[in-house]
């Protein structure tokens, strides 16, 4: 038997038809596309320490620079309110409350939060939202206001806003 004829008659044993090869190509392409997408979300969502753009030095700077004083105070008061609410819900003691206020204040450029009237309004709002018993509200008020009538009034103002 002529081997050449035999080889022409012999079909491939792998079973690869053009249709199967094109399906495999499609599958690999789709997988590659998906992998890139997945890798992207994985590699990314990352804080841009790797980014060396000159603008990253000043990214988001001008927005904070051009926000008005009222906007900043409102945002600060909101964060104090949120902090007060989650802190009081945690059941931690009143004495430890002041520690967290320092971190909140620093985000808004306030190191001496005791001197900022807005702090106490935010505390009052947070106490109201937390819905804690009145005796606990009184304990916070006594500890934080230290008898200062202006601070007491500010906390009560905050309480009144959200009750």
């Amino acid at each position, binding site marked *: 038997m002529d081997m050449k004829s035999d080889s022409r008659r012999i079909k491939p044993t792998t079973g690869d038809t053009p249709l199967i090869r094109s399906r495999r190509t499609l599958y690999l392409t789709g997988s*590659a*596309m*998906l992998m*890139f*997408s*997945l*890798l*992207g*979300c*994985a*590699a*990314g*969502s*990352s*804080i*841009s*320490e*790797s*980014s*060396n*753009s*000159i*603008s*990253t*030095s*000043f*990214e*988001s*700077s*001008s*927005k904070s*620079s*051009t*926000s008005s*004083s009222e906007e900043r105070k409102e945002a*600060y008061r*909101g*964060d104090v309110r*949120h*902090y007060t*609410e*989650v*802190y009081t*819900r*945690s*059941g*931690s003691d009143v004495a*430890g409350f*002041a*520690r967290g206020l320092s*971190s909140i204040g620093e*985000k*808004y*450029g*306030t*190191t*001496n939060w*005791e*001197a*900022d009237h807005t702090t106490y309004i935010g505390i009052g709002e947070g106490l109201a939202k937390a819905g804690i018993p009145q005796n606990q509200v009184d304990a916070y008020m006594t500890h934080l206001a230290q008898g200062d009538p202006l601070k007491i009034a500010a906390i009560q103002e905050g309480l009144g806003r959200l009750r």
Partner: protein
Amino acid sequence: MTAPAWLKTKAGIRIACCLTVWLICWGNAGQALANSHLIGYLYVEANEGDSSGGHAAIRFGKQTFHFQHDNYGKIRIRSIDSAAFEHSYALLGNRTIHESSIAVSEETYRLLQDAFSQFVIIQEAQLETHETLRRDVELFEYLLAQARNRSSDTAAAGLNLKGLGYFLPDGSASPPSPSPALIQLRQQVSAAYGENFIAERIEQSRAALREMNLRASEPPAAEITRDAYPRFAASASTHYENALLARYALEILHNAPALRPGTFWAPESDSFRIDAREQLVLADFALQLQNDLLRLVRSSRSDWGLPFIAGMARLAALEASLSSGRLVLLDTFPDSAQPDEHLAVAGSGYLPDMKNETEQAFLFRRDDFFKGGQIDESDYSALERVGNQLAELERALTSGSRPRRLPEIPLPYRTARRDYLSVPNLNEADLEKELAAARAAEKDYAGALSRLYSYDLFRRNCVTEIFTCINSTLERLASGGGKRDRTARDESLQRLGGYMDASRGFTFVPFVSAAAVDACYSVTARQEHPSHRAAKLAEMKKRESPLWVFLRESNTITSTIYRPAPGDSPFLFFTDDTILLRPLFGAFNLLAGVGKSLLGLAAMPLEGTKQLQLGVKGILFSLPELVFVNLRKGSMEYVAEKQ
């Protein structure tokens, strides 16, 4: 029961139909009014660099929350001004943002916005707790080294303390000549609390340091959850640092030194000049600051020392402003940020624009500060911050170096190393025991944080965390509502129009999640925030021939829009705005990547692997283009912010 006779008449039928239509419209109007608030779900398109496969965020008006993968392998929530988010991703990142507006009631809007805001606070506190535990380990290592060195008569390295850098040099050298403003403050304190007040408080603080009973903290790591503020007593390092800073605050008040040279800005430019009216405003603020410090020195806050030191430094800067007739601002850049890196030519071309933009922001801030009325510390901090940025840009322009990056919280916390610190009387055996306990506590807490926040491609990424936060909030609401068998799914269906579970299927992929949100929630509108390049192309095509714009702007060589950021891989053609030509352009881009890689290989002995890495990245991002998939869009070194 049969219908009344009048309803069977033609008029009756007409009235009934009108009534039905009116009721339907009223119902819809009522529902529309009830769901009058819009929450934005944002899908950010892919691009090389950060979040290269896409990103997701959730927007509540001016506040946007998103999750980022930090350098420690954790997924962190961030709150950012919405305009700043757009500037970062759409303009600098050159990625189109697709926003789906979900109609909700005001109550649901506030509920979810509060939930995300509270999560920011809770997670930050948990990470700060871990940082505190890490500092505990450092402290006990330092104290142990001190104890061992005492026995061998050699000195251990000191500690860096915040705020002291404005008055004290590193080491143990004496402070420079006195400041009139601080002398006046000292006199006021003595007048208010007694002549011996400062000396007695210094002695008390030294005694407190010697007798301090430092113990390693053991925070309840097992109790850490995503929705509970961490319960944690003050750590050893916090106690010790607060006591040290209180002592130094009093000693600085006692010595009243002037600001050290090199710790403040006194630019000569006109933007920093102040007129007579502004000097009066500044003098009033200085008086207010003085009175605040007078109260702060007797505060019951355990951490009063640092704000007091920062306040004194600012008082000295205000004194210098009033005497010189121009704004003198404390330098809030950290010591470690040395301005010695030379800026590439391409980047230096943007510095004048950046400086002009920052100058406008500074002038805005000046006007806001000096307009009169109640001024508080945060107002001065805002002026100080943007003043630092402007002064730094002026310096970078003059020197041709890269501008330094301000820390995330730019407050006047310049550090100084202090040697020969007062240390508690603890023996080596006790310190070794405490060090071991501190290390164990830090390790336990780190493990707990990893269990909560470790990044996972499929289960814990920028998409899944958004829906985890939403669903867990609704779950708490459902379980606390008093109705049996009510679940997060029920709440979500009622409030958002559907329920999203990002752990199923491919919903964790950003673009898939966006489509799912559109299909699932009550999305009433979709909006596109075009990328910087897309917006510019649209503008150009209104003025010029679209064909000419395409020919000019399709490639990186002749494009007038593209300002390549340093991390961009090399490529020749933009493929995001063309589909038919994408494989052809992709092929050329692939060649560019290959060429860069070969150059990178050749330059490796001299320049390291940076060029090679860029070349390989160029190849990788070109491959999808060959099969009609676009990821890369190029990012921008600089784009002015929208005013």
